[in-house]
């Protein structure tokens, strides 16, 4: 079809607009950052006006929000939750801990850079980031989605071996099922 590309483009625009305006968040409340999520969602800052909404299970969620430091034990659960989510999916790293380990820099059992284990689309720095900063981060993600640049999931799929190797390095009792989609 001659205008196949064009129609695909229109579909993409509609889809991206819908995705941008509807972010179902799986807030993985690790560490102290989780305390910033309730004010973000409730009356004071009301993230729902941007279409951001909490979801209970990874099957239904689009965004994995990792709030804070990740012990190796927790990392395993985060990876599992991420792998159970359906494409397209995004990750937001929250707080300094997901960027460089934060105050856990020299801890023996926390990871330092989340991006080595799962592909992070947007980081929100600060310790702690205030709800304003969280919303700012979400809007940044929305911009990326609109431009079609939030492609962490494809990155993960393409470089699965590299990610797996990194994951296996820190997770000792490896019993994860294969990543299957």
């Amino acid at each position, binding site marked *: 079809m001659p205008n196949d590309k064009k129609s695909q483009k229109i579909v993409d625009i*509609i*889809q991206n*607009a*819908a*995705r941008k*305006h*509807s972010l*179902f968040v799986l807030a993985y409340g690790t560490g102290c950052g989780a305390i910033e999520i309730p004010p973000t969602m*409730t*009356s004071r800052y*009301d993230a*729902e*006006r*941007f*279409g951001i*909404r909490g*979801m*209970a*299970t990874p*099957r*239904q*969620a*689009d965004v994995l929000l990792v709030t804070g430091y990740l012990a190796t034990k927790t990392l395993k659960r985060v990876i599992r939750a991420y792998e159970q*989510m*359906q*494409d*397209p999916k995004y990750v937001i790293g929250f707080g300094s801990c997901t960027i460089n380990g934060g105050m856990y820099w020299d801890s023996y059992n926390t990871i330092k850079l989340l991006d080595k284990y799962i592909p992070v689309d947007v980081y929100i720095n600060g310790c702690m980031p205030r709800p304003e900063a969280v919303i700012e981060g979400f809007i940044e993600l929305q911009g990326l989605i609109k431009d079609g640049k939030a492609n962490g999931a494809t990155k993960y799929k393409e470089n699965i071996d590299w990610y797996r190797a990194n994951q296996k390095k820190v997770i000792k009792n490896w019993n994860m099922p294969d990543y*299957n*989609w």
Partner: protein
Amino acid sequence: MDNSIWISILGFLATITLAFVVGVFYGGLVRKVTARIQNRVGPPFYQNFFDIVKLYSKTTAINHGWMQHLGPAFAITASVTSLMFIPILNGQGDMMWFENLNFKGDLIFLLYMMVFGSLGMALGAGQTGNPYSAIGVSRGLSQMVGYEIPWVLALVAIMMQAETTSITGLIDYQNANDTWMMFESPLAFIAGLLAMLGMFHYAPFDVPFAPAELASGPASEFGGKYLALMMTSGAIMAFVKLVLFVDIFMGGASNLVMLLVKTFLLYMVPVLYGVVSPRYRTEQSIRYFWGWPTAIGVLGVLYVVFIR
């Protein structure tokens, strides 16, 4: 080919579109109203359209077996079939487009048709093997036994009064006597309204889904297209319930504007009641329905039998 077939097919499509748009729109409005009550701005009223389009555009990569595919299919079958058998407008105005199969079914058929979807959905949820889904289903079905009793009492009362079981018959009765059933047998209306609180599953009767307690209940393992289809059928089902209620208690609606006004006012009852309520436990919920609502329903039936 016969022209009337095409007209009726177009009528089906028009009805489904209307129900879908209105149902989804109401869903967004409910979120907005809830937000305003909680002193928030809230999402735009068209938010639910975005959600559904997004969910349809998501990939669905896994399944747990055949029933997981069939569950949402059962749900949408039930809601669309129920829609086909419900009079949208009351025949005073121009109802050609929404006539569908109105004269082919009646209230008792509709009661069972509406259960069909829940049971199909429950089977799909059962196939996934998620214990949360099973708990949700168990709670949902238990609660259904609760609210069906006042609901049936209310229906019996009005059916005895109008001496018909068909919905079109009930509407005609109300139009002929120039009155609304909610004034003719007010006790039945109250019982039906209380049962409706349970039917919409807003708090305090949201035990089957119980956010923060059961993941999201039966839907826990459903994402992407499955969830989109479930939301679609949920929106249509909400519309069906509202229109049914308007038809049998409020004399139907002569045009679309009246329909929207009546259904919206009616919808606000469970929503506003729910926003300010915590959640019951399942057995409390069942006992609630078997308490005052049932008593009022019994009185409503006796009122129709002995006084009218």
